[in-house]
């Protein structure tokens, strides 16, 4: 990928992570000469994360990801929260109310687990396929700034590369922006250090013990099982394809500036969890083998601080995206959807600016406005529930602890997310309502790709395993339904377009009603989940067998004009 590079490009992207490669894909696809510069020897090998990419990133993010087959480790269908009251007495409450019901689960996933290196490499390959040049093993050491406008970058070997627009996707530290005086270094109280372990495990064991659910652990500070509720974050276990990913992360400092010995803290949490938590000790420990221990800082609480949140996301000649713009989500601790959204917006604004011949800060300020008005980004960087857990710890109120966990990672999280997700849904509906069938195909294609990547016959995930070429009745029904749905959506497009505007006030009203009536519909939801758990087993098996064995062509994305 280390092509010979020119001295000038339309767009230079700093960093080949989730955001940088997506932005490069956009600008290269729109005919702009695009160079991506990555400091790691291989793409994605300096990115560390426990990673569930929430589904809204795939639904509303870059089209090439939605319509492709990226390397996912496992579809996720829900969260199991373990709320530890007293580990020694085995007093642990479980909140597993946030999950996709059968038979939709696990195909219609809540998100996808992935390794950063594999996923970012796939994105980089896709960007290169549409014309982006990607070089790795090179540090951008400085920006070229003339009259307050960024005109290019300086490489570590002293070479300069000029660009009409620089898209800064350098990650959470944002060294270039800090050095140029555009943004400030974040204070340690908003920075979390993620201590991550990767355990190899047989797929059958992962399937049997974890299935498709991620596990979170919450407990009083004095239990020393997980990072403190007061200023830490949490402990999470992700089932991957043939491995478990385990992450504990806590802020570098308390609000009052107190700093702890984090090495000792993390060792204590890990020893206590693996030694005291029964499901780990009895079911998991002897089936796993530690194969990686890594850590990284990320900017978890930037969005909750008014001053930090207001720092600029652009300057003349430069747009700042993803973690470099402080867009990490405060609750799921995930920055990927916001990196993708901001990459798409930055790609579009850069294209417009270059077409208009105006890369001034005034022109590029539209990027800043769009990011701040993006319903999902605005919600995800300001959701307070993880931060609020400290109040439960202060008062040592068990009821409060369960309430906050339920608000952030239980059923009530839906009441908080329904407004931003629906607003973005209505936006994309306006552009082309047939995106809904693209989503259905995506779900089936992703599941099929995942299944074959980790099945005994993993040689070609795109290949049908059937030994005959006749269309089965299931394939016929699926294709028929997709075709008719597409036709109906196309015919009713004007009506849906109108509705997408008329429904907006009603959606805003939902912000209040969804939370208010949760007492009414949550018990019904929980009963429905239990009923489906018992009754929909056969249907779930039939659906997953169909997804795994059908001709992959029927799940292929339809070629459509991209906005």
């Amino acid at each position: 990928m280390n092509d010979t590079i020119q001295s000038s490009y339309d767009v230079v992207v700093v960093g080949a992570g989730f955001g940088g490669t997506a932005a490069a894909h956009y600008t290269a696809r729109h005919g702009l000469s695009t160079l991506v510069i990555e400091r790691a020897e291989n793409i994605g090998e300096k990115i560390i994360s426990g990673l569930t990419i929430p589904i809204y990133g795939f639904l509303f993010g870059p089209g090439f990801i939605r319509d492709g087959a990226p390397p996912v480790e496992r579809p996720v269908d829900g969260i199991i929260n373990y709320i530890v009251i007293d580990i020694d007495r085995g007093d642990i409450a479980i909140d597993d109310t946030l999950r996709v019901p059968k038979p939709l689960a696990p195909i219609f996933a809540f998100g996808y687990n992935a390794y950063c290196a594999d996923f970012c490499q796939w994105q980089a390959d896709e960007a290169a396929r549409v014309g982006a040049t990607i070089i790795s093993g090179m540090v951008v050491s400085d920006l070229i700034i003339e009259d307050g406008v960024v005109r290019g970058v300086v490489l570590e070997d002293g070479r300069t590369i000029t660009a009409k627009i620089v898209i800064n996707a350098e990650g959470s530290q944002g060294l270039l922006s800090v050095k140029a005086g555009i943004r400030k270094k974040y204070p340690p109280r908003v920075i979390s250090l993620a201590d991550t372990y990767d355990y190899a495990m047989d797929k059958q064991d992962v399937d049997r013990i974890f299935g498709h659910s991620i596990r979170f652990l919450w407990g009083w500070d004095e239990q020393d099982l997980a990072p403190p509720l007061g200023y830490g974050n949490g402990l999470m276990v992700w089932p991957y394809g043939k491995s478990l990913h385990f992450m504990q992360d806590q802020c570098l400092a308390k609000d009052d500036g107190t700093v702890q010995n984090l090495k000792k803290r993390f060792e204590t949490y890990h020893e206590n969890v693996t030694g005291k938590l029964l499901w780990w000790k009895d079911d998991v420990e002897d089936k796993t083998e530690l194969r990686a221990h890594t850590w990284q800082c990320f900017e978890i609480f930037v969005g909750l601080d008014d001053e930090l949140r207001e720092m600029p996301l652009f300057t003349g000649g430069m747009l700042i995206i993803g973690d470099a713009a402080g867009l990490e989500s405060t609750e799921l601790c995930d920055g990927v959807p916001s990196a993708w959204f901001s990459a798409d917006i930055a790609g579009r604004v850069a294209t417009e600016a270059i077409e208009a011949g105006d890369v001034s800060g005034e022109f590029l300020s539209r990027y800043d406005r769009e990011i701040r008005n993006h319903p999902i980004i605005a919600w995800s960087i300001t959701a307070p529930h993880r931060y609020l857990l400290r109040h439960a710890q202060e008062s040592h109120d068990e009821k409060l602890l369960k309430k906050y966990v339920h608000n952030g990672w239980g059923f009530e999280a839906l009441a908080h997310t329904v407004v931003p997700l629906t607003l973005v849904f209505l936006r994309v509906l306006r552009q082309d309502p047939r995106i809904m069938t693209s989503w259905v195909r995506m779900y089936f294609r992703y599941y099929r790709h995942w299944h074959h990547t980790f099945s005994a016959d993993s040689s070609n995930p795109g290949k049908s395993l059937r030994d005959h070429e006749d269309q089965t009745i299931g394939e016929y029904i699926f294709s028929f339904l997709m075709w008719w749905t597409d036709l109906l959506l196309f015919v009713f497009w004007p009506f849906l377009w109108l509705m997408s505007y008329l429904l907006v006030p009603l959606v805003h009203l939902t912000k209040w009603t969804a939370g208010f009536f949760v007492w009414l519909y949550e018990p019904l939801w929980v009963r429905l989940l239990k009923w489906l758990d018992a009754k929909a087993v056969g249907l779930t098996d039939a659906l997953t067998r169909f997804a795994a064995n059908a001709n992959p062509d029927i799940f292929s994305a339809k070629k459509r004009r991209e906005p």
Partner: protein
Amino acid sequence: MRTSDSFPGVRWVGESGAFIQVDTEKCTGCGRCLMVCLAGCFEVIEKKARVRSLEWCMECSACWYICPENAVDFSWPRGGTGFHTRFG
């Protein structure tokens, strides 16, 4: 290329140089950089922090964030060098 028994799954490539440095004029010897570094890169001698070794540094930049005196100068190691992992 280096690997460590303490930190499996990671390889350190090439020579990265002194990409983290402590300004001894600014340093007050508070030791916060030691507290947050999981790789043991720092030591405090005569009330001044200094980089002991960057051999197992994961480039997390916790030392840079935590220093109240802005005495830690953090930059990226030379391109293609430093830590790499497939399991992040």
